[in-house]
């Protein structure tokens, strides 16, 4: 029996397209039909761009015919609705941008267009990427394809669920405190957060500018390498993008990991870790040992402070970044008697509760008299977290940890308790604070049939190391081959 086109990965589909066994138009139609028939059950898309996808597929076909294809030519992708797309509505999951039509492309979108990819549409997310469940979307929550009573994770929950449910071939997400890796883990797909500065943030709607980074969510590790290759590299339009050379990320795939040192930080295996997650990650460490890797115990002593640091720094940056939504230049405007009232009404009606909560928290942390106690203190502890990683990476090439403390939780379970929700990012946040890359790769399932992910962290610009180890692990296991009962 032949597999349906929508179920394929980039690395399977690209050669079929190149050989002319299937056309980009057929692939795009297969995706659009599946989205139309099935997405209502999961709500992963905010905007499906049928005419745009068809036009891009036609262009891809012409390009393949000219022999000018790249590995992404004709590949249908979903984009988290936080990166701007020229002429295609970009909402950030917010009422305040519900009708925003960007006049330009984010650099990542421009690069994917140049590579000949096909954009299916824009996928769901927690409003302004603030959340861990997609329940903060103004367009309703997405659902986990492994069990629709459960959240898909967040904030890139639409991206992860769409990849897992074969509603796209691959997707882009963004990660400020775990927003690629956590939903990837909870939906059983691969999610890579690159080093800060590896991928341009130009056209990524800003949440916390010193932490935000765009990356791929894919069905397998090789696809993450292919997508990262297409979007990585210096961009003069983002002054924080790194002018460092980009290695060939596929070259390392399949290389043995014999003798490679993997650090296991004891701080990530303590209290609060779900026993089934602990068991799956321990089993993954055994698999890696079986492949010849050497486990070394490392210490990241300031891990327990990471969430506290994040909820000062990220919200402080957010309160400043989100000041631009004032109902004047673009987006929703509420009526008011005077300009101040327009501002306050626009922002109160346009932003959801979590966004307002974080703006309030950030405004307070930066306000006169509190700056030193909060922002400065948190920035100092951030430096200590960074030093922990530098010390650890003198002892090992990569670090292995759980991604999230538990498998997916039920819709509504944590929605009234922001702090508990924040703590679900406890294992992912420190990588953003340290600016280092991290990948989530499927490593097991709970007794309830929900996916569990293994997180690998690397030193600055260590994406190739992560991909090498993740690929070796993936090839030795079959978790990535399981499809959700959807």
């Amino acid at each position, binding site marked *: 029996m032949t597999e349906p086109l929508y179920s394929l990965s980039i690395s399977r589909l690209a050669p079929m397209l190149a050989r002319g066994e299937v056309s980009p138009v057929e692939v795009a139609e297969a995706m659009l039909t599946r989205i139309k028939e099935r997405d209502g059950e999961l709500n992963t898309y905010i905007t499906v761009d049928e005419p745009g996808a068809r036009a891009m597929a036609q262009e891809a076909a012409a390009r393949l015919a000219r022999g000018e294809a790249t590995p992404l030519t004709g590949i249908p992708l979903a984009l988290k609705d936080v990166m701007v797309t020229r002429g295609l509505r970009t909402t950030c999951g917010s009422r305040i941008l519900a*009708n925003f039509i960007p006049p330009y492309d984010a650099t990542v979108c421009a690069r994917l267009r140049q590579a000949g990819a096909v954009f299916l549409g824009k996928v769901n997310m927690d409003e302004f990427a603030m959340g861990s469940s997609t329940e903060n979307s103004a367009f309703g929550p997405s659902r986990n394809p492994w069990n629709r009573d459960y959240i898909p994770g967040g904030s890139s929950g639409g991206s992860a669920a769409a990849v897992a449910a074969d509603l796209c071939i691959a997707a882009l997400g963004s990660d400020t405190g775990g927003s690629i890796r956590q939903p990837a883990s909870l939906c059983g797909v691969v999610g890579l957060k690159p080093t800060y500065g590896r991928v341009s943030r130009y056209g990524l709607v800003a949440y916390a500018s*010193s932490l935000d980074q765009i990356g791929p969510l894919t069905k397998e590790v090789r696809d993450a390498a292919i997508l990262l290759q297409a979007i990585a590299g210096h961009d003069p339009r983002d002054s924080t993008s*790194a002018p460092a050379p980009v290695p060939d990320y596929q070259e390392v795939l399949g290389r043995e990991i014999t003798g490679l040192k993997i650090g296991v930080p004891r701080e990530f295996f303590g209290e609060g870790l779900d026993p089934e997650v602990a068991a799956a990650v321990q089993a993954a460490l055994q698999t890696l040992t079986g492949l010849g890797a050497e486990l070394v115990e490392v210490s990241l002593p300031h891990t327990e*402070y990471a*969430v*506290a640091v994040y909820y000062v720094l990220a919200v402080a940056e957010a309160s400043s970044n989100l000041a631009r939504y004032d109902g004047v*230049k673009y987006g929703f405007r509420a009526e008011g008697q005077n300009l101040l009232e327009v501002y306050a009404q626009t922002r109160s009606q346009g932003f959801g509760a979590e966004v307002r909560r974080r703006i309030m928290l950030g405004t307070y942390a930066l306000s006169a008299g509190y700056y030193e106690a909060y922002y400065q203190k948190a*920035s100092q502890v951030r430096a200590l977290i960074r030093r922990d990683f530098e010390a650890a990476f003198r002892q090992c090439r990569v670090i292995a940890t759980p991604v999230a403390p538990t498998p997916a939780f039920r819709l509504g379970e944590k929605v009234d308790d922001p702090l508990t929700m924040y703590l679900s990012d406890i294992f992912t946040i420190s990588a953003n604070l*340290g600016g280092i890359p991290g990948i989530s790769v499927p490593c097991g399932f709970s007794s309830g049939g929900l996916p569990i992910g293994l997180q690998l962290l690397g030193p600055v610009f260590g994406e190739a190391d992560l991909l090498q180890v993740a690929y070796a692990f993936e090839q030795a296991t079959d978790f990535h081959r399981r499809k959700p009962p959807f």
Partner: protein
Amino acid sequence: MALTREEVLHVADLARLSLLPEEIELFTRQLNDILAYVEKLQELDTTGVEPLAHVIPVFNVFREDVVSQGLDRDAALSNAPAREEGALVVPRII
């Protein structure tokens, strides 16, 4: 350092947000929970630690001072809630 209801209203004003009556109480409680958690940073002695604001060593990015093509005005204004003759329209200020 617990936030009072008055401080919450003051912060909302600074952030240009207007809160509904039931939100004032809810936000006061939730913000205090979060701030109490964040308080754990004070356990650490950070004397002499240089604050880290930016993780990659890139400073003062310069380019040649030449004019380049940006967005044209109509495109830049295309999402404005109200515009007139190439300008943004807002309620009377004075």
